[in-house]
């Protein structure tokens, strides 16, 4: 499947200003629209032109990939992280009824590069920001070649 987002030239000009905006509690998750943006963006490396305020970042260093996702108001025991091949899914299930109006559960998926050591994936939730650390498998790590 291939989805191509229509870019309104006017809204592109306004993007800088439209970006002053963060997604709400309910909109941060479960947006398929955004999931496709993300998956497609990684596959093609194009600028996504999304103005709706995506709440996920992906980084790497020599040893790991890191995904950062905003989950305001969600407790750590309510979060579930899973990795299926290169699809990272982050779900939450609210335990209390207190926040029923904000949705009881939701999930968000993003594509991460291949070559992750799935056994060693870890996640940390701090101040409403979830950081998932995905260690690179040995074979994809950069290797220093000694010149003899």
């Amino acid at each position, binding site marked *: 499947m291939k989805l191509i987002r229509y870019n309104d030239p*006017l809204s592109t000009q*306004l993007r800088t*200003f439209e*970006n*002053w*905006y*963060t*997604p*709400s*509690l309910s909109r941060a998750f479960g947006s398929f629209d955004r999931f496709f943006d*993300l998956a497609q*963006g*990684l596959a093609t490396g194009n600028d*996504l032109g*999304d103005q709706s*305020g*995506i*709440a*996920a*970042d*992906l*980084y*790497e*260093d020599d040893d790991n*990939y*890191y995904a*950062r996702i*905003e*989950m*305001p*108001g*969600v*407790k750590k025991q309510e979060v579930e992280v899973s990795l299926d091949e290169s699809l990272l899914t982050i779900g939450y299930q609210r335990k209390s009824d207190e926040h029923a109006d904000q949705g009881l559960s939701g999930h968000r998926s993003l594509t991460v*590069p291949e070559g992750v050591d799935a056994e060693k994936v870890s996640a940390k*939730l*701090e*101040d*409403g*920001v979830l950081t998932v650390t995905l260690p690179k498998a040995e074979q994809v790590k950069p290797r220093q070649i000694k010149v003899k």
Partner: protein
Amino acid sequence: MSEITKNLSAKKQDVAESSRSLFVKPNYESNRVDDEWQISVSMPGVKREHLSVSLEKDELTLVGRRSDAVPEGWRPLYEARVRADYRLRLQLNFDADPEGITAQLEDGVVTLRVPESEAAKPRKIEVK
């Protein structure tokens, strides 16, 4: 179109007012519970010591500074979060009791309780 233009100039002005840095307006919800307003504001990435709440006349201002900076050595592959600091300014249309305002920050959500002042509460008039 006029709506967009209006919106744009409002945002420009907002940005111009802050000399130190740029802000995003956080999402919030407000509910009235008994004699107080409960306002929850989403500020992921903000720690308690970096949150300030102030009330000046009828303008309630929340500023939250993010502390989830990207560690050194992390190279972005895909960056889409808006990581500016947060500022929310709310004009209260009731008389708030400044002493009674409380703010709590948990898991990136600020819960503000803003009670109405005694004077603003509806009074029951006894009919003689």
